[in-house]
């Protein structure tokens, strides 16, 4: 069976869910005729028509707000943010309207907001963001951020079927760089479950999205060069977060490095760290350490971007420090 890219896996999920459920529709800028800025929705409009794959005005608040209204009426809209950086334009609609709808008004809001996220692509400050932490603080939303093609497909299908709003972050660096053979049939990955990407004994790296691959690279190198056995936990879902999987890996290795691409201050790693403190403080043999982006807007020049973002060498260095603590 042929291997499928991360991007193609997302398109497959959209196709299959639109085939399965006539209430699923897509909304976004340039997603129809043009097939999307990254061609994720390529071919969707030709298959499902203009009324189910809607080219919208340049209006993120309208896209998300209209999706909420349609979702109240029983439809299952999937919104594309052309770049996830623009989700901030819909922050009000998402946090004040969508996230509260079920709680304050018993209005169901089954919808997905998805879009290309993340850096390492020379995209500069406005085409590289990782805004997950900005939404982690909002009860009512769910957040997933897959690292593999298989999870991208399975989690998107789960997100579309979920009864609440799911923010689906796609890492654009991974779009065409990774591929794998996908599980056959109706492949759905449950939201809220982490994935053990690599087993190890000495130290755990808890991470998600593109840095899963950097953590795996670092783990290989540490094994090769230092005889260190590194476990890598890919969270996949950030909200809800898989506390059991986190506690399990901490109890096993007693040393934790949290890695994410987003800036460190106020990032998801802080939340994970606090959870470990609650769940498994007694099992720690070393302080919890974080590796993330420096606290600056993401610059464009390769020399600057590479310096700001976490690299495999940073993870190796931090892991060695932890192992020797």
């Amino acid at each position: 069976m042929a291997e499928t890219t991360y991007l193609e896996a997302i398109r497959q999920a959209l196709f299959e869910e639109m085939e399965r459920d006539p209430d699923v529709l897509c909304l976004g800028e340039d997603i129809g005729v043009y097939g999307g800025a990254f061609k994720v929705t390529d071919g969707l409009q030709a298959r499902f028509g203009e009324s189910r794959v809607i080219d919208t005005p340049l209006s993120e608040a309208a896209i998300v707000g209209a999706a909420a209204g349609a979702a109240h009426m029983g439809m299952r809209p999937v919104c594309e943010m052309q770049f996830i950086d623009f989700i901030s334009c819909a922050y009000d609609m998402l946090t004040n309207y969508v996230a509260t709808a079920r709680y304050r008004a018993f209005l169901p809001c089954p919808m997905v907001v998805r879009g290309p996220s993340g850096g390492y692509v020379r995209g500069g400050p406005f085409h590289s963001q990782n805004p997950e932490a900005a939404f982690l603080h909002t009860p009512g939303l769910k957040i997933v951020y897959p690292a593999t093609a298989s999870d991208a497909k399975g989690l998107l299908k789960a997100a579309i079927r979920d009864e609440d709003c799911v923010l689906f972050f796609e890492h654009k660096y991974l779009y065409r760089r990774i591929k794998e053979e996908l599980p056959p049939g109706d492949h759905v990955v449950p939201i809220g479950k982490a994935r053990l990407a690599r087993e190890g004994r000495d130290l755990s790296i808890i991470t998600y999205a593109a840095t899963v691959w950097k953590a795996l690279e670092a783990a290989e190198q540490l094994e090769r060069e230092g005889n260190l056995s590194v476990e890598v936990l890919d969270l996949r879902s950030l909200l809800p977060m898989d506390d059991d999987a986190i506690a399990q890996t901490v109890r096993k290795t007693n040393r934790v490095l949290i890695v994410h691409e987003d800036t460190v201050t106020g990032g998801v790693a802080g939340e994970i760290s606090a959870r470990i403190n609650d769940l498994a403080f007694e099992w720690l043999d070393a302080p919890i350490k974080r590796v993330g982006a420096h606290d600056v807007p993401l610059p464009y020049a390769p020399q600057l971007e590479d310096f700001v973002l976490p690299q495999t060498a940073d993870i190796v260095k931090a892991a060695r420090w932890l192992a020797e603590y």
Partner: protein
Amino acid sequence: MAVTSARTSDRTMPPGLTRDQLLELYYYMRLTRSLEERLVNLYRQTKVVGGLFRSLGQEADAVGSAYALERSKGDILSPLIRNLGSMLVQGATPVEILRQYMAKGDSPTRGRELNIHFGDTVRGFIGQISHLGDMVPVMAGVTLSFKLRGQDRVGLVYVGDGATSTGAFHEGINFAAVQRCPLVVIVENNGYAYSTPTSKQTACASFKDKALGYGIPGVRADGNDVVATYQVTKEAVDRARAGEGVTLIELTTYRRKGHAEHDNQSYVPPGEIDRWARENDPLDRYTRELTTGQGIASSELEELDGRVRGEVDRATDEAEASPAPEPRDALRGVYADPAEVPALWYREGIRSAVETHERPSSWGTHDG
């Protein structure tokens, strides 16, 4: 600049409404006013937990516009804080309103939301949030679903003069216009957004002029004339139902009370409120119209007033007897799954080794 009273010239009947319908309009306007007057009493007795928002002087625009929808077809509106009358027309009941304001456990939102922030898609109203303008994109989506499913349904969304300055209003109405959604957008121009007069809200001569920028019709009507309001909205509703898309309606009216009950209206020029109360009260005007223009006996209207008094009294008794919410209910219903979030550890007991005595055997044995 003072807001001036606008009167329509003499209008000839009939407006396409039956005698019973004309009386029903009166009933809803009276119910709105009496219910709010009762809320003022309860507010002064500190039984209203939060703020109280009045629609005094705006009852006609709320009732007349909502009356143009067809509940039997499944039309849906999204009200504003001064559209109590619209909600009553769509079937909201006085006891629901009172329980909401009094934060009761059996209120429509079980104590989660304030005042008239609640909805029921079956009866045809979707509750607003406080972020003004946000309901325009939402109602664009509601009506988009009507269009996509080929349903014979129409949506109506209210915004105030202030909300027309928001990005959400612009994005929502533009989206709905492009998609030709069956949506009616009503701008209630009541002269003030909190304390800000219309002159500081927009440089447009009239809010209806904004329609030009969206490629949709814009019309203006006297919002204190309940029949005129009904008629202008009915035309827009008919257009929407016929697949002709969005209409922007500006209803001119006047907010005779402050933004909320606490507001002393110090920013209003002297005499302005009195003049509107004296010359342009929508209930007074409509009473005159019914008794002189339509030959309906005053006694018939007084009978309706009595019916409304009885309904409000009964609803008050019922709402006062309602229980407070059960505190733990606060943890339910953020998500479909999980249906409930856990209470925090200091309320619930500690999920950790301290309580379970589950620690690694080496714990505490480090001797430095």
